[in-house]
């Protein structure tokens, strides 16, 4: 239990190196990958998320916990079984075309990584076609589009209609950003709307049936 506990605490305290060292030690001493993943990394992140929800800890602390978790995850990923791979969604994320405001998108990306998802960050000012191309190329499960400017919101609708044109029915689109609403999400036919970064994680989990 010692090594698992060390990993768990390292993630909670946001200690990146300690988390990586813990996972390395766990692997070399033969602890099951599933235990390292669930009892070590993911359960720690669950507690971090809970504490954040209660207002006990703050965003920078969550980010550093996520970094610690990510460091452990990178070492574990090569050892994943097929089913472990599948449980972790791959998300292509970027800001809407015309929008270079990316702090919200970055925050969502970090939170998603913290929750154990794979995130492919396309950056800012992304054309709808590019989202679709990249999602197909990466075999992504989800496209996440962020916007701050009301003028760029409509390019989100284009992402959805392009996806529908190409009949990519298993590919989901999640949107987020200050001017959006669940009403707008319905209107353009997106699959989910994240009110904030934590909600985005919850919505991705819902979409993935996790």
């Amino acid at each position, binding site marked *: 239990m010692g090594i698992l506990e060390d990993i768990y605490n390292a993630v909670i305290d*946001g200690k990146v190196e300690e988390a990586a060292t813990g996972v390395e030690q766990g692997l070399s001493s033969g602890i099951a990958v599933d235990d390292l993943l669930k009892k070590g990394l993911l359960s720690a992140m669950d507690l971090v998320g809970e504490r954040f929800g209660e207002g006990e800890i*703050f*965003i*920078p*602390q969550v*980010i*550093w916990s996520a*970094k610690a978790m990510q460091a452990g995850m990178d070492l574990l990923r090569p050892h994943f079984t097929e089913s472990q791979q599948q449980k972790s969604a791959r998300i292509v994320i970027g800001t809407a075309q015309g929008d*270079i405001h*990316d*702090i919200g998108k*970055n*925050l969502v990306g*970090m939170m998603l990584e913290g929750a154990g998802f794979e995130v492919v960050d396309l950056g*800012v000012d992304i054309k709808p076609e590019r989202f679709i191309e990249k999602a197909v190329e990466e075999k992504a499960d989800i496209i996440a589009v962020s916007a701050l400017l009301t003028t760029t919101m409509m390019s989100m609708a284009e992402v959805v209609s392009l996806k529908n044109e190409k009949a990519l029915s298993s590919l989901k689109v999640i949107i987020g950003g*200050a001017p959006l*609403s*669940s009403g707008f999400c319905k209107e353009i036919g997106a699959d989910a709307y994240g*009110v*904030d970064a934590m*909600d985005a994680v919850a919505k991705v989990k819902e979409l993935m049936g996790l």
Partner: protein
Amino acid sequence: METGESNLCQPKFRILDDAQIGRVHQAVLKILDEVGVRVNHPQARELLAGHGARVMDDHLVQIPSFLVEDAIASAPSNLVIYNRNKTKVMELGGRRSYFGTGTDLPRTVDLETREIRDTRADDIITGTIISDALPNIDFIGSYGLPGDVPPGLHYIRCFQMEAENSIKPIFFTAESEDDLAVIWEMACVIAGGPQALSDHPFLISYNEPTSPLAHSKEALGKLMFCAKNQIPVNYAPALLAGSTGPVTLAGAFVVAVAEALSGLVIHQLTRKGAPISSGVAATTMDMLEATVSYTSPEFRLTHSACADLFHHYGLPVWGTAGCSDSQYPDLQTGAEYGFTLLNAALDGANLIHDCGYLGQGFVASPELIIFADETIGMVKRYLRGFEIDSEHLALDVIKQVGPGGNFLQEKHTLDFFRKEHWQPGIFNRKNLPNWIKAGKKKADDKLLQKAREILETHQPEPLAAGIKNELDRIWEKARAEFQKKLT
């Protein structure tokens, strides 16, 4: 490279320059020397006469300037106040600001019914427990004036209830020397004797002259009792510009200061070096309603002038803030709390009282103590300013992150966010969807919720059983004596 200059950038505020302080001071000295003050206490008059003041007809006493200068020089410039457990918690002096409730509010907005009703004894306990739980409330007043305790006894009862429900310093009122003596007896029991109490005082007596330019027998009796027994006392007038003082702010201010300083003279002649905090509350009488404004912008101006003058004197200075003229918690309350608290703290007043007040000093609403606490937190953060050393200028991090980057994930952010950023406890920062999801709570709702939470869960440190019994005994004795007087 550090330059050796100050790294700290802080809001700085004063309204009187040195020359203006000189002019104000000369005017005050002239009032005391040429007009004089009424001194309605024989011993106080004797004391003044024996030291060179001129006692005239009608108990009028003209005080020569040297007595005033002597008193300013002999009064301590720093007043150390402890809590009930003899831990140092306030150093009244310099620009160090401490905040607390006031005393004597006869009506209370009931926490449950939200109706305005007469204040009761249990409201004193409620106010005390809430104040005890809050980080930015440094000292505790009775807050309410209990209508269900007979006059003559209610201040004794208030003190007892406060001492039983908080370890924080108690800022208290007394009717006369008689109940003050009983309160002092209780305080001595708690501290372990008169010497222990004067070594580690955990109480401050509130006392005031009567504007314009008069000192009542009761006020002077209490003032001299405090001096003799080394009980810290705050002696400051509440003057109304346009009725109990000149309508002009300068005139109102110099009259009020003359009252405060003549009190200081009597106090210091009674016992040199005895602990006192001074200053004035010179506000306006509303010329439509004939009421006292606790928050008028004119009051804030004399408050600022007072702080400047008493900082110059090197005397601990009194303050008033976190109060409202509104009769019920509302938007006006919010604006007036914010305005007065920011102003009092910028002034660098030391003993800032009346936090949680409503209704021009007549109405209590216990959840507003929490509102004051929240606002004080915000104001304190503002006054703390910011640093500009290399670590805080953060050029290394700026270079590393570069244009278009993201500072959120930097170690620098993790290391500094708690020190640099104030985090509200009550005030909303949720976005609209999350605010709706969390029940659309307004600050008012959250204050009431927090008040109930504190009352359910907060456990003040109890008094030792022996001391509690002794206080009960003193209370019963005072009550019996009071009954005897009535029959």
